């Protein structure tokens, strides 16, 4: 019996067509647009000006505060602008625009293929290197890793969980790195264990990736303290709280952090980035992005520089199909539909999904028939139908007592609703308003 989380969950069609596609290296574009706010928290403060010459891996934005991350240039060239440009949603955000000239890297960055497995750095050095490399959670939420590795006083980490679940349909970026960079991931895991001071790490992988489980198992048996935990396929197993429940059986308290049960969760992509940052002194300037969709000509997994326009990635995958109606940045359950294809790849971009007109449009909403399917699939045990109504009627106090802040926005409720009601749309809105209310009260 495979492990999984207890309540709720759905089984969207997996459609992981690119699982066998080897990671291709995308050529460096002519111009990159690097957003300064690619992470949760304050956007980085730019340290370059228009006209400056930068090298690949050079710091261009300093972390602005504790919850923030440094931003590095992913190419070498000249800074042509430090301005605001529309992000994927069309909303202007501060960016650094760099015109590419050659491919010159910063001194000290080890770009050789040779694996480095000998961890010599101390705990403090590791943390410093991770912070300096601007590493954030690569699963999509993009929370600064340095912050996650610093447990608040009074809490101690006992277990590191590496998230190789990739429960989002279509996406295969994590799957591919687990196959192609398995050793590096395990070394990255060991580095993270050292940084946290824990003796044990579990890599959780859903059972639909048997090759990745086999490969990592083979390596992990040689390493003390690293275990592989195959999990039953169920969305949203990649959610932090769900993964902890599945792997350890422990429950993170409402509105609490995973550290409350002694666990720290990191994505496999993050483990890989940590390996590169610590062992090779390479900051986070590249990532793997899955480009896929029903009518995409050459779907695949691409290694591309941060800041590459997403339109370039789509071109590499055979161009925008004629019937495309919706381009999603991320997976179909939690990703964001893009209003602007010139928006760049950021640290949190795990995939680009192109849906046709038929797949993209929602069906018209009808009355709630109170079938309670949303209640039964909610992985947090909430009542989405009720939260939606409370949000519509703007009752943040009631929303708070109904635990709206526990919502992980996984989208299972909207996914399953037979009446096609936009449950999550309204719940997200209500969650935002309730959050504002709670923050105002604390002041």
């Amino acid at each position, binding site marked *: 019996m495979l492990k999984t989380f207890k309540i709720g969950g759905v089984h969207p069609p997996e459609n992981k067509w690119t699982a066998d596609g080897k990671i291709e290296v995308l050529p460096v574009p002519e111009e990159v647009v690097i957003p300064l706010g690619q992470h949760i928290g304050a956007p980085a403060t730019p340290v370059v000006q228009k006209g400056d010459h930068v090298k690949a891996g050079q710091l261009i934005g300093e972390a602005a505060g504790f919850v923030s991350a440094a931003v590095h240039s992913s190419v070498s060239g000249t800074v042509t602008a430090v301005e605001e440009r529309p992000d994927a949603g069309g909303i202007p955000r501060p960016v650094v625009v760099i015109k590419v000239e050659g491919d010159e890297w910063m001194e000290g960055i080890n770009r050789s293929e040779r694996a480095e497995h000998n961890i010599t750095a101390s705990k403090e050095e590791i943390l410093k290197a991770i912070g300096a490399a601007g590493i954030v959670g690569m699963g999509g939420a993009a929370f600064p890793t340095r912050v996650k590795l610093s447990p608040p006083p009074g809490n101690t980490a006992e277990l590191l969980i590496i998230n190789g679940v990739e429960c989002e349909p279509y996406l295969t970026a994590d799957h591919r790195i687990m196959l192609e960079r398995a050793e590096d991931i395990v070394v990255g895991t060991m580095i993270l264990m050292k940084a946290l001071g824990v003796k044990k790490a579990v890599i959780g992988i859903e059972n639909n990736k048997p090759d990745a489980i086999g490969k990592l198992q083979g390596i992990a048996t040689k390493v003390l303290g690293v275990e592989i935990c195959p999990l039953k396929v169920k969305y949203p197993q990649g959610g932090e709280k769900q993964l902890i429940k599945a792997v350890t059986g422990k429950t993170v308290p409402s509105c609490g952090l995973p550290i409350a049960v002694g666990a720290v969760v990191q994505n496999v992509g993050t483990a890989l980035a940590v390996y590169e940052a610590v062992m090779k002194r390479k900051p986070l300037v590249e990532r793997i992005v899955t480009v896929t969709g029903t009518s995409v000509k050459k779907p695949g997994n691409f290694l591309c520089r941060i800041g590459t326009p997403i339109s370039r990635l789509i071109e590499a995958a055979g161009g925008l199909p004629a019937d495309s109606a919706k381009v999603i940045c991320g997976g179909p359950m939690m990703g964001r539909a893009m209003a602007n294809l010139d928006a760049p790849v950021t640290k949190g971009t795990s995939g680009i999904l192109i849906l046709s007109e038929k797949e*993209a449009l929602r069906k018209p909403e009808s009355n709630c028939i109170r079938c309670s399917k949303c209640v039964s699939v909610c992985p947090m045990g909430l009542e989405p139908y009720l939260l939606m109504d409370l949000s519509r009627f703007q009752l943040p106090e009631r929303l708070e007592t109904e635990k709206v802040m526990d919502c992980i926005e996984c989208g299972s409720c909207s996914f399953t609703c037979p009446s096609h009601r936009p449950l999550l749309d309204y719940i997200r809105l209500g969650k935002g308003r309730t959050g504002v209310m709670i923050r105002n009260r604390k002041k």
Partner: protein
Amino acid sequence: MNTILITIVSLCAIGIVSAVILYIVAQKFNVEEDPRIDTVEGLLPGANCGGCGYPGCRGLAEAIVKANDMEGLLCPVGGTAGMQKIAAALGREVSEAAPKIAVVRCNGSCDNRPRINRYDGAPSCAVEHALYAGETACIYGCLGCGDCVEACVFDAIHMDETTGLPVVNDKCVACGACVKACPRSIIELRNRGPKERRIFVACVNKEKGGTARKACSVACIGCSKCAKACTFEAISIENNLAYIDFTKCRLCRKCVGVCPTGAIQEINFPARKITPEIQETENTPAVAAEAKETVKPAALTAETAVTGTLVPTAVTVVKEVVVTEEVVTVEEEIVTVEEEIVTVEDVSAGEKAEEPEMTEEREVVEETIPEEEKKEVPRKVDLATDEEIDFKI
């Protein structure tokens, strides 16, 4: 007989016992309340709209009685007249407040502001605003999902099907519910003005002129021509956006004439004098009439969306396309460009192709206006070349 007697007696007994219980309970659990609260509540409209900022009419009544003067307490529904009645009942003075109305400060109709996306989420402006810039390139303008319509309890605001923008009608009592509901703060409460005449900047776009103009043909570009034209210092420019202070504005309409994009709207003013040329145009054959039709969205809607009156600049535009030959070229151009769209975009569905045509027509029409005439018409800005035009004047 006996049965009837017993019935009467028992009924009376129940009645008396109930009355005694009621009396005792009423005495025991009596809550002392200022009787004036009831008086004031009786004078309030009783709509419980919350427009005053208090929870219902009783809440406002309590606040009024508790306060020492009427400062900052206003029932937007009852208005000044209602407040005066209340003040008289309480033996206080009330200051005069001009009647107000909600004003939608966006004119980004489908014609003025091309749609570049289709929003397919929950029909709520708040939801859309939280995630996206909206269906157009303007990140400040109306999203058109109708949160304001839903918020209005007076049936005073409705969506216009053709423009996709909300329209306020006379039923508005300036309760401010729509102002609060609008996530983009487009709706403002302004003085109703003498004879319901109002002038306001129908734009809230804070982008630089070029960007704003690219997103919407009737955007305020912050050129400050209106501020210079205003003799009463009623217009201020902040963040590339003009704002007309309605307490200072004397409704002279000078600013309306100088605005290069037509972002300033005038409402309920009598029509200005129509020059002879315009009548000629109306008499010319169908071709010219059609030409006028195509020009209208670009030049006319901005100024005359509400009143339907013709303003001088509109007249000049019509003058330009009266020449029949030119009209023909316009149409030819439209056709060629349409074909271009089809080949470039490879639009498959017929209905999809329709939308781009609309905007394309408009752009082409503007392109065909001769260069020398453009100088005479301050309001005419070529969309196709506006990337080069610097709006900082």
